[in-house]
């Protein structure tokens, strides 16, 4: 975010509150994962970090294919 947009967003947040999630009524999956309520946004962030961590762990610990040993006959 540019400095100007950051200043504007923060001033707006200070005036209007942290999020505008109160007027949204979500059900099901969107009740916990949405981009309007602070809890929904937090859950998305945690899910993304978990996904990235799982990807890193998968590529780090996946079994490497071993080439068959070359023997002299």
């Amino acid at each position, binding site marked *: 975010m540019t400095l100007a947009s950051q200043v504007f967003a923060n001033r707006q947040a*200070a005036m209007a509150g942290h999020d505008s999630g109160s007027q949204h009524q979500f059900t099901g999956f969107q009740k916990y994962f949405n981009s309007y309520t602070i809890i929904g946004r937090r859950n998305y962030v945690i899910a993304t970090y978990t996904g*990235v961590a799982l990807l890193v762990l998968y590529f780090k610990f996946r079994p490497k294919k071993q080439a068959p040993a070359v023997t002299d006959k």
Partner: protein
Amino acid sequence: MNLSFFDQFSSPSLLGIPLVLISTMFPALLIPSMDKRWVTNRLSTLQLWFINLVTKQLMSPLNNKGHKWALILTSLMIFLLLINLLGLLPYTFTPTTQLSMNLALAFPLWLATLLTGLRNQPSTSLGHLLPEGTPTLLIPALILIETTSLLIRPLALGVRLTANLTAGHLLIQLISTATVTLFSTMPAVSLLALLVLFLLTILEIAVAMIQAYVFVLLLSLYLQENV
């Protein structure tokens, strides 16, 4: 010994004794000490008025918890302002041209705002990593972008101050060298360079004040998100 254009930025020392501490602490000597009188002299009144103005400007967007940071932010602002302005005097070393000093100021303060947020309101702090109303498909990318933006903040803070001041000082030195060198051969061009130098000095005074203000303002904005 032959000096290069970058020798003005080398840390000062006298007979092997580093003088950087003296040059960093010197601005504090210029601030009048606390007076027990109710009505103080003009200088103290002016200083107090200015500090009050700065504190009100910085603290107005923050809530009561954020007001605990008033002392450190205001003193940081006065410190940077004085160092930057004093550095514009000829042959004066400017400590804020050193990246080490600016990063030493930026990184711990940024980290303190981050840890304050994660400690006191972890959900809100994490939630701010995703802008409100983001379309679903863009969410993972934007979270990664916002995380990168968060982690790069201390570097940006430090490098912004360093680069602005270093570039300004270098420009002043280049144009003043051109003015002096051209004086004997092309005095008209030298006069033009002198005019440019005058305007540049005014610009650098403004930049020195603005950069100190921007540094502290950004820190207060980062604090606002986390408190």
